[in-house]
């Protein structure tokens, strides 16, 4: 009885927070869900897509009982086993990722509410009515003001604390339950990201309700180094937008170059098309070491921890602008501006300045004072040859390279005057600098690589924010029927096996009329290659969210617009209510929205939570080889796993046999393997025969192109009836099916997992 009272009290509290009395939609079964509320959905997913663990460490060393050896079935002093320890680690990674985005959102909100007040209206333009699909679905709230976003974020912060608590020694004892918690906080990550980006769009006036956003200069060759140069680095645009404001107010925008690294670059170019993008995180150390930046301003997340030291080496001034990374610097926030400028110019001191307006003013004044005195020259080929002569190609550098290649081989060729090898290696370099610190001969590898980096410039389309409701209405039917073969979302960081892979993937799928969506460092990498006519993918393909479009949504936090688009298809096109109705939305996406995420260079904890959040929503993700170090994947065994669904129209459980999608989190080694898999992971049970034939056409042709002659070994699992076979391969597929004794089967009218596992959601809820 007491328990019932407690549940009722909690529910009332939630209804109050989400303003349940405003009847824009009925409140679904799980508004503001807590950890156990969607656990049954997770367990159903994990039944088919079981966690696959690849321990990166055999031990647990979290508490003072340890270190504990967890090999050969041993348990730690607290009782934990190796699988549960991996799951716990994954949860912690997802918590870090979720916290980073949510705290970013929190800081931006605080900044903007301070400026505009909590009642500032959320207006994303005439083409966007469903402004916050993640918040509406998960929280159950329709945010109308900046103040409403605080309600969503407070809920996220509370859940983060609960989930983090569960990682303490001696608590959760089930790997599956840790996974459920990881899925939970990663779902919340998409809420936090959505809060952050909506606040930014509203507060900074970023583009919205428009597809054709400006084309931006990319590459350090685009930077006019004869001017004072200010580099902004990280993710949080509070500082960089104020910096642009300061330059505009003082009529200096054409006199000072503003350039950015990583997501702050994407954010800044959404605010000013005059700003330049240096490149993804993998270019950070290279660029800093050129000394082109007169002032470096760091904010948060993906910024190098050695920025103060690197800045000092080349005489760049440096300001830490956010409390997340203060680098041990003196906090000068309350000091007199002129005094800070004097000390930075005269004494080369570095400071933390947490007031964006003051940081901006100091950065501009310092840059203008020191720029004329600084030399910013490129290394010449002759100088590079001379420096490279110290290399003995001892291969010590190879031993520490995260991408496992021998830069010494390239450097020793430079010594002979051959720059071809190092130019190729530059595309594989993840920019960590470990090779240089390992070199016994102190060869300045990064400096020599300036020769490979060159001064070429490329183009990137400015991030456009949410997908418009009008676009969703246009593509909803072709996506769910399969006639647009899929949505390929290429996201995440720059820890690529080869940077060129990204442009290859974009080209391959845009040409095939998939919708290609990009964000973060991947959005920059996609633009860093030109075709024979000198065009990048952003100049060649339409910016519309439609077949053959190449869409840059923006920075990391804009990933919420990709998950949001999937939810909007269920809500706007299929007219399913989303309010507090996560299970129904995720079930729809899993079974009917042919989308596949690709995090080819994922390195960070944020990438872990972004990807895991997509997984809970039913979107599979393909990861590059480095991502095996995340320790966990979600893989099915297609021949043996449970592919049964409920046919909601007939109310009967059907064994579809087809692994669609086959995996939820999958790692592969080469782009050649990844591309057929990406096409396969867009197959959904809901495909019409016409749609399935189109999807199989791409799967088979990509297989033949990259894997070899013949047919994919599992093609029979995806052919339901003869009409599913693509015309081009009809004869070959029919002969193969006959040979293996394939039997036709009926497609499922309305496939859903609801009804195949214990849930409060009725089957009726998925019928639209």
């Amino acid at each position, binding site marked *: 009885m007491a328990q019932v009272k407690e549940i009722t009290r909690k529910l009332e509290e939630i209804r109050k927070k989400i303003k349940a009395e405003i009847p824009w939609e009925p409140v679904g079964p799980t508004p503001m869900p807590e950890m156990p509320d969607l656990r049954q959905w997770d367990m159903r997913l994990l039944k088919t897509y079981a966690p696959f663990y690849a321990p990166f460490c*055999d031990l647990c060393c979290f508490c003072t009982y340890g270190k504990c050896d967890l*090999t050969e079935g041993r348990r730690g002093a607290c009782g934990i086993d190796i699988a549960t320890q991996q799951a716990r680690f994954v949860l912690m990674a997802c918590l870090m990722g979720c916290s980073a985005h949510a705290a970013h959102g929190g800081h931006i909100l605080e900044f903007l509410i301070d400026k505009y007040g909590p009642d500032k209206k959320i207006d994303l333009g005439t083409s966007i009515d469903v402004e916050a699909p993640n918040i509406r679905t998960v929280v159950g709230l329709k945010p109308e003001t900046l103040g409403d976003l605080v309600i969503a974020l407070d809920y996220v912060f509370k859940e983060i604390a609960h989930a983090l608590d569960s990682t303490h020694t001696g608590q959760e004892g089930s790997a599956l339950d840790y996974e459920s918690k990881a899925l939970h906080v990663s779902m919340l990550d998409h809420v936090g990201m959505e809060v952050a980006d909506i606040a930014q769009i509203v507060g900074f006036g970023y583009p919205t309700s428009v597809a054709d956003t400006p084309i931006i200069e990319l590459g350090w060759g685009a930077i006019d180094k004869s001017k004072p140069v200010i580099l902004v680095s990280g993710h949080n645009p509070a500082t960089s937008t104020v910096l642009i404001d300061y330059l505009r107010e003082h009529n200096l925008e054409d006199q000072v170059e503003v350039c950015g690294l990583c997501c702050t670059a994407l954010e800044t170019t959404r605010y000013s098309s005059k700003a330049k993008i240096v490149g993804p995180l993998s270019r950070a150390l290279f660029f800093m070491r050129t000394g082109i930046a007169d002032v470096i301003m760091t904010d948060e997340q993906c910024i190098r921890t050695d920025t103060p030291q690197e800045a000092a080496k080349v005489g760049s001034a440096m300001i830490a602008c956010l409390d997340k990374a203060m680098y041990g610097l003196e906090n000068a926030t309350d000091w007199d501006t002129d005094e800070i400028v004097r000390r930075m110019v005269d004494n080369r001191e570095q400071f933390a300045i947490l007031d964006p307006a003051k940081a901006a003013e100091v950065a501009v004044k310092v840059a203008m004072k020191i720029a004329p005195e600084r030399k910013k020259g490129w290394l010449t080929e002759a100088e590079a040859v001379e420096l490279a002569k110290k290399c003995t190609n001892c291969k010590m550098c190879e031993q520490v390279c995260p991408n*496992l290649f021998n830069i010494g081989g390239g450097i020793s060729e430079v010594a002979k005057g051959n720059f071809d090898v190092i130019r190729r290696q530059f595309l594989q370099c993840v920019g960590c600098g470990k090779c240089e610190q390992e070199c016994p001969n102190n060869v300045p590898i990064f400096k020599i690589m300036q020769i490979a980096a060159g001064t070429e410039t490329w183009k990137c389309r400015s991030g456009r924010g949410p997908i418009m409701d009008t676009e969703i209405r246009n593509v909803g039917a072709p996506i769910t029927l399969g006639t647009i073969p899929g949505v390929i979302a290429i996201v995440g960081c720059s820890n690529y096996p080869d940077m060129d892979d990204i442009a290859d993937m974009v080209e391959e799928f845009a040409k095939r009329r998939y919708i290609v969506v990009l964000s973060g460092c991947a959005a920059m990498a996609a633009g860093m290659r030109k075709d024979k006519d000198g065009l990048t993918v952003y100049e060649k393909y339409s910016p519309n969210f439609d077949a053959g479009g190449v869409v840059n949504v923006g920075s990391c936090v804009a990933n919420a617009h990709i998950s949001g688009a999937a939810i909007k298809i269920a809500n706007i096109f299929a007219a399913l209510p989303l309010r507090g109705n996560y299970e129904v939305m995720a079930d729809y996406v899993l079974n009917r929205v042919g989308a596949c995420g690709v995090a080819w260079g994922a390195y960070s904890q944020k990438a872990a939570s972004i990807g895991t959040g997509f997984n809970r929503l039913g979107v599979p993700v393909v990861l590059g080889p480095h991502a*095996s170090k995340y320790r966990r994947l979600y*893989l099915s065994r297609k021949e043996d796993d449970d592919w049964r669904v409920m046919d909601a129209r007939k109310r009967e459980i059907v064994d579809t046999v087809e692994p669609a999608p086959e995996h939820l989190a*999958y790692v592969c*080694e*080469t782009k050649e*393997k990844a591309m057929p898999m990406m096409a396969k992971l867009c197959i959904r049970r809901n495909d019409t025969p016409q749609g399935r034939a189109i999807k199989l056409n791409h799967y088979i042709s990509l297989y033949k192109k990259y894997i070899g*002659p013949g047919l994919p070994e599992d093609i029979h699992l995806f052919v339901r009836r003869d009409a599913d076979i693509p015309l081009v391969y009809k004869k070959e597929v029919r002969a193969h099916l006959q040979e293996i004794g394939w039997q036709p089967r009926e497609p499922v009218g309305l496939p859903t997992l609801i009804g195949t596992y214990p849930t409060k959601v009725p089957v009726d809820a998925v019928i639209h």
Partner: protein
Amino acid sequence: MSAVIPRHRVNVLTGLKSAKLIEEPAEYADLIKKAKRPLLVVGPLLLAATPEGKVLMQYALDIAKAANIPVCATAHTRGKMVELGVEPQCVYDVVEVVNALKDPKWLGVKKEGNHDLVMFFGIRSDLGNQGLSTLKHFAPHLKTMTLCRNYFPHANYSLPNFKKDAKWLEFLDGLIANLKKGE
């Protein structure tokens, strides 16, 4: 390569249950011959060629032929195998075949029962080591071995770090010769 274990290992344990390092081709060949259902998993590093122009994949195919071992082609290696006249017994990616191998009830690529010895050859070392770690922890029913030129600590048996390619290729030639003995 066996590490010295400190008395109070709780304080300083490094956590690496390391592979047994084997340098003699004959010893490797004996281990392979003793296996009842071995499997050779090949990766994309075998698409490269020696300075003399021999595709590394040919070594894998020669080993498989000499010991009658089924081959699992990962990544995009199948195309090269077919070009060299051999159709692999199965096409999986590394994580997929490892996922199957860790199930003791899996029937293996020949449907005769799970494999008792799994050889990794030509898979990049980060992914290879992670896959071997999965098998080390979750597949006690099988042994693992690598044929690459560098040491893989998570395997049961590994080659050393060869300083020169020639020495490694010499080892592989020796292994093939030993496997052919008594055919």
